[in-house]
């Protein structure tokens, strides 16, 4: 009796496990947002979130508008202030230039860098470009993929170690 009950329970749990996460994402896109608690847990600041493109996989305008709406995950937050709009977007060769609305000017330098990093990583992921320039008024930042250090790593080489 107990064995039968256990088997039924396991089967039910397996079934419920299959449905976790809801419907399957058909056209996944990766957005980058800020970890809300990075100051407390000292974990990675920028975290990715996978979203559904719904037939707009190649429509960058649509995807950035979707990005601006913020993350679905409650543990993440958008790097941009509310009502921030992407005024213009210009794509050229291997780079993209974005012009953001004036609300970004209220941010501190570090916050602006962080927001630009999130948008840049998202755009690089979506389009494959290597460089993003974000502009807002007289504030400009150019970010290349290799120029972002997101977390410190343990040294692989033992000579780097201080003993």
């Amino acid at each position: 009796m107990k064995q039968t009950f256990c088997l039924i329970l396991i089967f039910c749990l397996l079934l419920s496990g299959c449905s976790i996460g809801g419907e399957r994402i058909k056209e996944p896109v990766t957005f980058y947002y800020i970890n809300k608690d990075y100051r407390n847990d000292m974990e990675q600041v920028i975290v990715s979130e996978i979203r559904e493109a719904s037939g707009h996989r190649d429509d960058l305008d649509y995807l950035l508008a979707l990005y601006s709406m913020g993350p679905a995950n409650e543990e993440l937050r958008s790097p941009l202030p509310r009502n921030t709009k992407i005024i213009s977007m210009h794509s050229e060769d291997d780079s993209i230039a974005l012009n953001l609305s004036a609300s970004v000017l209220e941010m501190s330098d570090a916050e602006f860098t962080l927001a630009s990093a999130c948008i840049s990583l998202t755009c690089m992921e979506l389009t494959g470009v290597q460089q993003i320039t974000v502009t807002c008024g007289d504030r400009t930042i150019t970010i290349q993929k290799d120029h972002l250090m997101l977390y410190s790593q343990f040294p692989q080489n033992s000579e780097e170690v201080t003993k």
Partner: protein
Amino acid sequence: MVIISENKRAKYKGYGKTQYRYAMTYVVITFIVLLILNIYCSITCQQLFYQSKREAMIEKCLLVSDEIATLDVLNNTSISTVVGQMESLKVTRLIVTDQSAKVLYDSNNEAMGHYSLFPEILTAIDGNDVCSWKYRDGATDTCVATPIVYYGTIVGSVYMSEYETAQGAMIQSLQKTVLQITLLLEIVVTVFSIAFANTFSRRLKRIMTSMRIIQEGDYTHKVSMGGNDELTVLGNEFNDLTERLQTSEQKRSRFVSDASHELKTPLASIKLLSDSILQYDMDIETVREFVGDIGDEADRLNRMTAKLLSLTKAEGVSNEESEIIMMAPTINRVARMLRPYALKAQITFLLELEEDCPILILEDDLYQIVFNLIENGIKYNQPGGSLTVHLSREEDNAVLKVMDTGMGIPEEAIGHVFERFYRVDKARSRATGGSGLGLAIVRTIVQRNRGEIHVSSTAGKGTTFTVVFPAFDTEVDGE
């Protein structure tokens, strides 16, 4: 040597599990406790190392940021000069950023001009001293960051990280030692648990073996437990129970033996008489005499069977249906019944009855007690003798005395008169139709009704039976 049947072997097959259950319970409990202690020690040890490391690293970081804050211009050259002067830093990596997290100086020269978005750096730019610490694979990675404050304004941050294996190895060594001690303790606990469980189950097994021995019929067996705990008490109780069982069994055997002997005697007489009638030519008078004897033996058998039934009934009936009755009227009724019998035996019958003697009893029970005692007093009396029935109230008791002037009971027989089928004078008892059950019935009924019965006798002078019942006063006991 105890032979256990296959069925019993199968029945008790799983009993050995108890000892393992006991042992495993101790092992599991201590394992959990030790595991918790182990984790606690490990975490505490790491915390201690972290605290000491944090203090030292933040101090170093603040020293660097204070030095950098004195610079007019923050660039790689100026910062390199300052850091170069501080030889005792000994960190794995030192990064200096401006307020936008752009790297101005990197001791590894890998991230110049890059943006360093470490949580420590971003928190420091917000104005906080911060330290994070990770312990992994026998190494510690400590990261600290402090803001660079220039005339009250945060102009950047200093980030230091230190990857250290020496401290990690020390933590690992400590954890290993604690783990070894834990395992050693667990082994010791396991061994002791098994030993304890074995000792415990051995004593239980002793009781179980004794039970089987007794089940096989050896009531003389006693279990010897030793010690001074609950099992010892259990063993003693078991021995007491066995003793009572033995006594009960002896009584039963004796009763069966006595009953069969007593019943066999009249049956043998009947058989002998009937055989005689069939085998020999007799005149009608002799046959009539023999048939009369057969009838007497049959009557005796009948009486004996009735008394046995009466005794069985007396032992089985509860006294829940008892009622408050006065003793005197019942005694008078019995006296009226037996007075002709006493007159026939030439015995003077005297009644000295006090009226106020209420007791709680079934009237039939009281009738039977009085009848048996008076009947015995007449049967075993001598012609010209007397029988006195005396009833009085003595404090809270009603006392009934039946005194005869018969031949008395020898001293050595007094202790046996209430036993079943015991007769002082067998020949006379049979001659008077006695079954040897009357007094046994009386004692059973008296005891069942919370009473006591005593006998005193002087050989050649007579016997006195004294029955004492608690008197029932309606006003006091009724409440």
